């Protein structure tokens, strides 16, 4: 029972942190009263709140939480605590998609829709390649990681190839996007994205028991009554679609999917049912907070949020690794 109480307290704490970060993100520099009152006004701050800050916070919440959940899922099925949502080559594919859409000038035609569409398309292309290759190896985790790295490298090289052909002015938005960018998503996407994000995440929440068992390896998992090939395929595809959505919404945001599960596993234990929920809340908190930093740290200059998560996450991870030794 003691353990359950501890779990409940930790979950409550990170939920509080999440709520605080949401208020910070919505009303930085304003009091709570102003925040509530301006929500109903149609001018000045009220407009900024509804048109910019709320959509941006929603996207940071969805992306951060999903990256946390993807990280947990992939770490279990790949049996590797260092796996993250991009381990299987999604980032490379997505960047390739974006760079391609830029070079053939689709951004002019499709406007705000070009990056999300091509990012997602590229991500799914790389997923399809890794999936097809892994299938031949019966989803052996080591082969999958290797395929992921190779696919990612090949796509990244294509990206640099395309960049070398591009006019430097055009590169600016693409580059911002590659570093993780929560600012440029069109708010028209929000109503579409909410269900698209929430459906795969809520499905993943129900596979905590299976993720526990899959981390014992394919053979033992089978002996415990899980059908590993089916779960490998299903969980791999679900988490890939989710990671692809994240990339399409906000570009490549590193470290969230790695560091959030890592820290939470350290304090909550390895049981995946709780870890999945905690990593969702924790991931959302970490990304929203990083976004606040990215906006106000060097105000009025706005940093790409991926740079903030990278620096912040990198230092935290280094600190943890050194302390453990």
């Amino acid at each position: 029972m003691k353990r359950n109480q501890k779990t409940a307290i930790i979950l409550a704490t990170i939920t509080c942190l999440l709520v605080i970060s949401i208020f910070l993100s919505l009303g930085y520099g304003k009091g709570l009263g102003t925040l509530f009152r301006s929500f109903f006004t149609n001018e000045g701050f009220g407009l900024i709140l509804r048109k910019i800050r709320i959509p941006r916070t929603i996207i940071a919440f969805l992306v951060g939480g999903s990256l946390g959940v993807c990280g947990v899922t992939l770490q279990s099925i790949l049996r590797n605590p260092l796996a993250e949502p991009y381990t299987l080559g999604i980032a490379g594919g997505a960047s390739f998609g974006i760079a391609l859409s830029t070079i053939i000038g689709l951004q002019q035609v499709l406007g705000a829709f070009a990056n999300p569409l091509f990012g997602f398309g590229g991500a799914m292309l790389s997923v399809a390649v890794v999936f097809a290759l892994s299938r031949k190896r019966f989803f052996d985790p080591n082969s999958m990681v290797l395929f992921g790295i190779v696919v990612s490298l090949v796509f990244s090289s294509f990206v640099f190839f395309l960049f070398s052909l591009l006019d430097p002015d055009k590169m600016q938005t693409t580059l911002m996007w590659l570093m993780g960018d929560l600012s440029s998503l069109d708010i028209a996407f929000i109503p579409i994205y909410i269900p698209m994000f929430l459906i795969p995440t809520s499905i993943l929440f129900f596979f905590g028991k299976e993720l526990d068992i899959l981390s014992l390896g394919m053979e033992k998992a089978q002996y415990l009554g899980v059908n590993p090939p089916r779960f490998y395929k299903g969980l791999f595809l679900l988490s890939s679609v989710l990671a692809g959505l994240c990339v399409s919404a906000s570009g490549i945001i590193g470290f969230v999917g790695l560091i959030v599960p890592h820290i939470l596993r350290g304090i909550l234990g390895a049981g995946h049912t709780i870890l999945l929920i905690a990593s969702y809340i924790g991931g959302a908190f970490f990304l929203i907070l990083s976004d606040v930093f990215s906006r106000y740290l060097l105000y009025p200059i706005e940093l790409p949020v991926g740079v903030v998560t990278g620096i912040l996450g990198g230092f935290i991870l280094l600190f943890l690794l050194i302390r453990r030794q």
Partner: protein
Amino acid sequence: MENPLFAVNNIVFHYDHHRAIDDITFTVNNGEFIGIIGPNGAGKSTILRLLAGFLRPTKGFIAFSGRNLNEYDRRELAQNIATLPQAADTPFSFTVEEFILMGRYPHAPQGFLYGKKEFEFVEYIMETMEISHLHGRGVNTLSEGERQKVSLSQCLAQDPKVLLLDEPVSHLDIRHQIQTFDVLEKLHNEGLTIIIVLHDLNLASEFCSRVMLISKGRIHADGDSESVLTFQNIEKVYDTVVIVKENPLSGKPFVVPVSRKYLEK
């Protein structure tokens, strides 16, 4: 007549082009304690994995309780057969209870969390295995001996009819080896059927009610330890000269390999 637990009928198994199991037939009855022995690469682990349903025979079939093994779904199989493979480690530090709880998976209703009943079953297993003091410990912090007990407890949490073990003691010292076998013997006396792949001929001789000597994918000898562990059988299969004596306490044969330097004299 009651169906035998396992009826293995003329099975052949190929790894790519290598014929690992070459036409084997045998039956396993309820309540047996079988030791599978044989040289490296003879096909011992392959037989175990075939019985466990992890591998499917290339030819022939295995019936479990009168039904083809291939017809069972994973969950149903895991309710009846618990298997401890050589490698079943995890990179994550589950607590001992969480680890054993995974054994309840095939019995627990589908859903978000495990129920109270499953937790109680884990407590019960931990008591009978005398590992209650390991409560709250991370599985990655345990000693080899403790870890083995915890892995065995996970299998027992499946409440199985049959326990299949692949060399569970080869990395343990003699104290922990005997402790493990004492536990297995107790479980066997309570009615559990056990099939165990072993390197140690003397442990097989001492504890198993039936010994199966495998050589090059075939059964070379099958029976009680006195009839299987003869120096003729062992020298032929292992290509090693041995002395076979009788254990003065149990009356079972024990085997001592002979070093080459004494052979030349």
